[in-house]
C-alpha cells in the first residue's frame, strides 16, 4: 500500500466515482452555487426593486414581470431573488452555528467519555426524539422575531443530530486500529490528524453541511409559512408563499407556485449535492448505494 502526500484528495476520489454520482454532484453544485450567488449579490442583480409598489397589482406573469406581481404590485421574481439572502443566508448561519456547537460538545463527549458523556448523551437523546420543528417554533417565540434569533432557533433544532454524529465519529476514530499502528510506525500527532482524522471528518462534514442547508431552508420556509419566520415585507420564501395563499382562490397561482419552486430548487440542489458528495467521498458506502 502506497502512502499519498495528502489524505484528502478530492480529485482522485472524484475520478473513481460512478457516473451517476458525478452527475448528481455537478447538478447539485450548480444549483447551490447559483443560489449562493443570489445570497451574496442578490440585491444588486434583481431586475426590479423588490420593495417598489406599482399599479399592476396581482398581475399574471408577463415579459416585464416574469413571475407576475403580488397584491401590492411588487415584482415577484425580484422579491424571490432578494429573498434568497434570508431563506438561505439564515440557513447557512444556522448550519454553521449548530455545527460548531455540535463539534465542541460531541468531540468532548466522545473523547473524554465517562459521566460527562453519559449525562450529555441522555440530554441529547431526549432532545433528539422530540420533534425539532416544535422546538424551533417555541424558540422563535421565546427569542422574538429577527434574523439572528431565527438562525439560533433553527440551529438549536439541529444540535442533537450534529452532536450524535460528531460523538460517534470521535469514538470510532479513537478506537481505530490504524491510528495505533501509525503511532507505532513513528508518526506524530499532526501527521495522524492530517492524514487520517481530518479526511475522516471532512468527508462526513461536507455531506452534513449540505444536508443541513436543505433541512434549514425547509425549516425557515416552514416557520415563515406559519407566520413565525421573518415577518413581511421581507421577502423570505415561506413568508411569501403564505402571503400568496390568500390570493390563490382569486386565481393568482403564481404567488404560491414560484416561491414553492424556489424552495424546491434549493432543496433539490442541496440534496443532490449531498447525495453525490456522499458517494464520492465515502467509497466504502458505494456498496450500499
Amino acid at each position, binding site marked *: 500500500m502506497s502512502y499519498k502526500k495528502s489524505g484528502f484528495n478530492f480529485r482522485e476520489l472524484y475520478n473513481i466515482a460512478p457516473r*451517476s454520482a458525478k452527475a448528481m454532484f455537478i447538478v447539485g453544485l450548480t444549483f447551490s452555487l447559483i443560489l449562493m450567488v443570489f445570497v451574496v449579490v442578490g440585491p444588486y442583480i434583481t431586475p426590479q426593486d423588490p420593495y417598489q409598489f406599482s399599479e399592476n397589482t396581482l398581475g399574471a406573469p408577463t415579459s416585464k414581470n416574469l413571475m407576475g406581481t403580488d397584491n401590492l404590485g411588487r415584482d415577484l421574481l425580484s422579491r424571490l431573488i432578494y429573498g434568497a439572502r434570508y431563506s438561505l443566508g439564515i440557513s447557512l448561519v444556522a448550519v454553521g452555528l449548530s455545527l460548531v456547537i455540535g463539534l465542541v460538545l460531541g468531540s468532548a463527549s466522545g473523547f473524554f467519555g465517562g459521566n460527562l458523556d453519559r449525562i450529555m448523551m*441522555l*440530554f441529547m*437523546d*431526549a*432532545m*433528539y*426524539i*422530540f*420533534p*425539532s*420543528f*416544535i422546538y424551533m*417554533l*417555541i*424558540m422563535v*417565540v*421565546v427569542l*422574538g422575531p429577527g434574523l439572528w434569533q431565527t438562525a439560533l432557533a433553527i440551529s438549536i433544532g439541529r444540535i442533537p443530530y450534529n452532536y450524535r454524529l460528531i460523538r460517534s465519529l470521535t469514538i470510532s476514530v479513537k478506537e481505530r486500529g490504524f491510528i495505533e499502528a501509525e503511532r507505532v510506525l513513528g508518526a506524530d500527532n499532526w501527521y495522524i490528524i492530517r492524514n487520517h482524522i481530518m479526511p475522516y471528518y471532512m468527508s462526513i462534514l461536507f455531506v452534513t453541511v449540505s444536508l443541513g442547508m*436543505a433541512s434549514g431552508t*425547509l425549516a425557515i*420556509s*416552514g416557520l415563515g*409559512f*406559519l407566520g*413565525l419566520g421573518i415577518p413581511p415585507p421581507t421577502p423570505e420564501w*415561506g413568508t411569501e*408563499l403564505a402571503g400568496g*395563499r390568500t390570493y*390563490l382562490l382569486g386565481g393568482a397561482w403564481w404567488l*404560491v407556485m414560484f416561491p*414553492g419552486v424556489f*424552495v*424546491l430548487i434549493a*432543496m*433539490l440542489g442541496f*440534496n*443532490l449535492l449531498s*447525495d453525490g458528495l456522499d458517494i464520492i467521498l465515502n467509497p466504502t458506502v458505494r*456498496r*450500499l*448505494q
Partner: protein
Amino acid sequence: MKLRYYIAVRLGLAIPTMIILLTTVFFLMHVLPGDPVVIMYGDRYPTKYIDEIRHNLGLDRSIWEQYGSYISDIAKGDLGISFVHKVPVVQKMSNTYACTLELAIVGLIVSTLLGLPLGIIAAMRRDGWFDHISRLVSLYIHSNPGFWVALIFQIIFGLMLGLFPISGRSPPDFQLTKVTGLYILDSILTLNFEAFIQSIRYLALPVLTIAITSIPYLSRLSRASMINVLGEDYMVTAKAKGLPQWSITYKHALRNALLPVITSVGGQFTALLGGTVIIEKIFSLPGLGSLLMDSLTARDFTMIQGIVAIYAVIVVVMNTVIDIVYAAADPRVKY
C-alpha cells in the same frame, strides 16, 4: 439478560427523558417576555388586584418552587389551568390530541406500507430501470416542502377534481360515539360504516401529504438495508444449500433487512410529528399543532407546557415501543 428486564430498563429510561424535555420547556417558558397575569386579565385592573391573582396562582414564588410544583403536578396528571381559556389544560387537550395522534399514526403506517416495498423492489432489481427511476423520483419528491405539496393536493384533488374534502376532520352532520377519540378506530369499534368512510375521506389528503414526505426516506433506507443483507455471507450459504429463491428472499433476506428499518421508523415518526403542525394548519385540523400555534400567539404558558408534555409522552412511548419491538425481533441485540 432477559427481554423482561430489558423492557423494565427501557421503561425506566423513559422517565428521565420525559423530565429533561419538561424541564427544558419550563425554563424556556420563563424566559418568555410578557407577564402571564396581564395576558390573562388585561392591564385594566389595579396592581393590588393583579398581585393577589399572581399570589393565588403561585406565580410570586421563586422559579425553583414553581418548578417543583410543576413537576409534581404533572406526575399527578395535572397540567394546570390555561391562562387564556381559563379551563384545565387537560380538558382543552382531550379533544385535540387524538386528531394529531390519528394523523401521525395513519401517516406512518401508510408511508411504511408504501415505502418499504418500494425500497425492497429497488434493491432486488438493483441498477435496473425501476431502481434508477425510483431513486430519481424519490429524490425529487423528497425535495418538495410539505406545505407546498399540501397546497397542490388541495388544489388538484380538492378543488379541481372534488375527490376529497380540503379542510376539517369530519362533515358538519358527523355522528360517532366517542370511544378513543381516533375517528377511524371508533367507527370500526362501533361498526359505524358511514363514519368510517367519512373519516377516511377527510384524512386522505393530510395523510397523503405526510406519506409523500416520508416515503422517500423509508424506501431509501429499506433499499440500502436490503442491499446490505443481500451481500452477506449467509445469503451465499442459503443459495449453496439449494434453498428455493422465495425462501432466500423472504425468509433470509427480508427479515434481516427489516431490522434497521424498525429503528429508523422511530426517527421518522418524530420528524413526521413535527410536520403535522403545518399540515394541521393547512387542512384546518383541530389537533395539537393548531392548539400549539394558537397558544404560542396568545403566550398561553401553561397551555404550551401542557402541549409539549403531550408531544413528549407521544414520542417517548413510541420510541420505547419501537426499541422493545426491535429487541424482541433481533436476538443479537445487546441489552
